[in-house]
């Protein structure tokens, strides 16, 4: 048997000829846009839109009663009509009357009606369904299981007029109406507990500016324009393909290769090369995610044993936490690692909420001498001259737990370890798998950790800062402050926007003073997209937003 060079040449010639003749994979067509997503979605049903990608896709497929967009100048949300043409609040805001459009049809041709709206509220709040909004209808009239009581809540005034009554004493807003309406005629036939796994949750009947076309599992989700939608205009992108590309390097390669048109969460170090290519627009979505160093404010062992709240020996004092914040060179991470795609964080209130943040409040500057003095005032001194501070016989030593697959946090932790050492604090770094980190934080089994929060819009602080640990499981540092609780409670009452903003400023000042965690930096989500796409508006609400206006 022998293989000659001639045979090899012929083999490769034939192979090349065949593949050069194949259709090139290219996204570059005005009729479609390919968006890279890192993992496949679970369902296409807005009831279960737990992930960002699911929410984004559902937003294009299903209409809400009202729609919120971002007002860059005002630094806040603004409301626009969608299924509801107009609305009117009664004098004490205990009810609202909606005038609905009568020209909207589901993708199977059935008209969208008030029955769909009432059904949607009912099904979203039904405990049997376990929708992503279950438990969020606190302003509505509900039973003991938080299920909306439809008979008391809704009054159908005409075929297009619906009155919604809210719970007495509640403070409802239009945000309570901003969720996708689902088709009653599709879901009413399915037992509520089975909706999550029903085939209708994978190939939906829709009402939005786009319709479902195809879902190639683990490959792509394809949606197409809905020419019958009132949002449809000439020039709307015909198809949007959400292509599943799990590997970051592959996403970058495909962007450069024009196999995808848009990708998010780029690493700062890749930006310069993309800029050179000149065929991409690089922009960033600011102020949605911040990294923080979490300190367990209470003694976790005592809490886990008998739920008693005793200050943590190391991190129990606000002054000590302030000192640690001063000993961390956060700017170094912003310049060296984030390459400017981030900014110092002062509190969990993002600078994008222009009227809610106190601009006069300055971040703690990197000052090792001041940090050391502050620690000394709190009784932490290095009496035995071993380089580690002591107080009442305890040395200032602790372990910081971080996720092993996050290079940014590994970089920052190493940097912080070195600067803390200079003020006599010994910090060991423990890298664990993300699931294990979440498990530790969630079960209060970590003294110190580094993680991030993606903040909700509209602003919500109660879920992570309210003192009651039983009702606030996401208060991971177990921060206790009665003054803050009162302010958070007040935010839920009927007060003006201006009053709310004043409260937010007070909350910001308290959290800045107490440093329950060290707020590190807001991290930009760097977005790159092909220049051929016009009209993309990258706002804090997202990138894949208002796609029907893209050209």
């Amino acid at each position, binding site marked *: 048997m022998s293989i000659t060079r001639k045979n090899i040449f012929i083999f490769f010639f034939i192979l090349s000829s*065949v593949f050069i003749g194949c259709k090139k994979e290219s996204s570059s067509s005005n009729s479609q846009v390919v968006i890279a997503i890192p993992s496949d979605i679970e369902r296409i049903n807005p009831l279960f839109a737990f992930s960002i990608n699911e929410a984004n896709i559902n937003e294009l497929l299903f209409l809400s009663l009202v729609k919120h967009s971002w007002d860059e100048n005002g630094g806040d949300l603004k409301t626009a009509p969608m299924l509801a043409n107009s609305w009117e609040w009664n004098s004490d805001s205990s009810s609202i009357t909606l005038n609905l459009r009568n020209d909207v049809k589901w993708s199977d041709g059935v008209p969208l009606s008030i029955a769909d709206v009432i059904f949607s509220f009912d099904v979203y709040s039904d405990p049997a369904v376990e929708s992503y909004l279950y438990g969020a209808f606190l302003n509505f009239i509900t039973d003991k299981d938080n299920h909306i009581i439809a008979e008391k809540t809704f009054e159908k005034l005409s075929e297009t007029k619906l009155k919604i009554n809210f719970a007495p004493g509640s403070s409802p807003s239009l945000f309570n109406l901003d969720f996708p309406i689902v088709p009653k005629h599709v879901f009413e036939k399915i037992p509520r507990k089975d909706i999550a*796994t029903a085939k209708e949750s994978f190939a939906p009947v829709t009402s939005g500016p786009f319709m479902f076309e195809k879902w190639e599992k683990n490959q792509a989700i*394809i949606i197409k324009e809905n020419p019958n939608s009132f949002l449809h205009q000439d020039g709307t992108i015909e198809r949007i393909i959400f292509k599943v590309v*799990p590997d970051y390097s592959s996403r970058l390669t495909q962007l450069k*290769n024009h196999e995808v048109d848009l990708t998010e969460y780029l690493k700062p170090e890749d930006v310069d090369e993309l800029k050179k290519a000149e065929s991409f627009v690089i922009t960033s979505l600011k102020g949605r995610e911040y990294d923080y160093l979490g300190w367990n404010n209470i003694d976790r062992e005592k809490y886990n044993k008998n739920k008693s709240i005793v200050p943590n020996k190391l991190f129990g004092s606000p002054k000590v936490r302030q000192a640690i914040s001063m000993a961390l060179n956060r700017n170094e991470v912003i310049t060296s690692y984030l390459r400017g795609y981030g900014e110092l964080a002062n509190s969990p209130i993002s600078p994008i909420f222009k009227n809610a943040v106190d601009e006069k409040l300055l971040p703690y500057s990197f000052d090792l001498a001041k940090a050391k003095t502050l620690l000394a005032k709190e009784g932490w001194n290095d009496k035995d001259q071993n380089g580690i501070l002591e107080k009442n016989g305890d040395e200032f030593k602790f372990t910081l737990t971080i996720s092993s697959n996050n290079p940014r946090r590994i970089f920052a932790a190493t940097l912080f370890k070195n600067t803390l050492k200079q003020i006599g604090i010994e910090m060991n770094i423990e890298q664990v798998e993300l699931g294990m980190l979440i498990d530790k934080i969630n079960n209060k089994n970590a003294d110190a950790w580094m993680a991030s929060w993606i903040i909700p819009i509209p602003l919500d602080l109660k879920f992570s800062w309210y003192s009651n640990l039983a009702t606030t499981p996401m208060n991971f540092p177990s921060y206790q402050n009665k003054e803050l609780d009162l302010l958070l409670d007040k935010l839920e009452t009927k007060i003006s926007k201006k009053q709310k903003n004043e409260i937010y400023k007070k909350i910001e000042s308290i959290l800045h003073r107490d440093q329950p965690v060290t707020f590190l930096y807001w991290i930009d989500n760097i977005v790159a997209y092909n220049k051929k796409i016009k009209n993309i508006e990258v706002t804090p609400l997202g990138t894949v937003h208002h796609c029907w206006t893209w050209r």
Partner: protein
Amino acid sequence: MNRSFIALSFFKRGATSVLILFLTVSLLFVLVRIAPGDPSQKYLSPNLSPQLFEKVKSSFQLDKSIAEQYISFVKNAFTGDFGVSYKYHRPVNEVIFEVLPFTIIFSLSAFAVQFVGGLVLALWAFHNHKKFLDKFLSRGSILLYAVPSFVSGLFFVYIFSVQLKLFPSSGIKTVGTLEENIFLLGLDYLHHLFLPLVVLSLTGLPIYFKYFRQHFEEHQEKLYTIYLRANGVAENKIFSRHIIPNSLNSIIAYAGVDLGILFSGALITEVIFSLPGMGRLTVNAILEHDYPLIIGCTLTAGVLIILTNLAADLIRMKIDKRLIKGLIN
């Protein structure tokens, strides 16, 4: 050896395999549950109400003891029901059967390239014994073996996809095409899978090359070869009828295990080229604490490894009947 003895031996082997699978799955069932983290973690977000968090936990049966969960699992498993995947919200069997055809075809193709490629190159090297080509292929195979697939994958993508634009960089077919012509569709699949196939094959090809090359050399010096040669049997005949079959025997035993492992998934290649295979499915299931799917994937991989080993043994028995007794026992 009578037929009933062979049948009994196969039954014994089958029963042992089922027992091993059962024990593996039972051990895994407990291990994944006592490992830190649980499937409700991924729902943690500012938008999650405490009420929903409690409901989610109870829907994953996390409020029940591991023993209770295990009993319920065993009862259902005997009816072929391995539960519903926490991530895909569909029966585990359905999710696995969706990726299995691709995995089997892709693995078999890679296996064929590795095996045949290794054999051909070994023959080529052997016929050029101790010449430049032999040395080049031997050293080259070590180099190839040392390059991990995440490096070769990215290298091939850079050269053939980014620079030469000959092949797409990922996926199994052009996304969104509604190709009706089966020939063109097949070509589209081939176009997409060519690079991944090369990358996956490159990891195993040097091993088969080395095995074949080494066995050819060993058998060349064996007494039976010298005897045949002394009796004037032509060199070609000795090689094709004696050396190759004898070399194949031990290599097939290795190939049986190798193919089984390939069927369990080629994670790195699947991730780099965004391929929907068993490897990606299994790892995602582990990362997301999708307990039913982890069990389903492990069981599938176990069954495939047992089957490929059985197939390998049957082939070996066919080649060399002397092995029958040893293998079925």
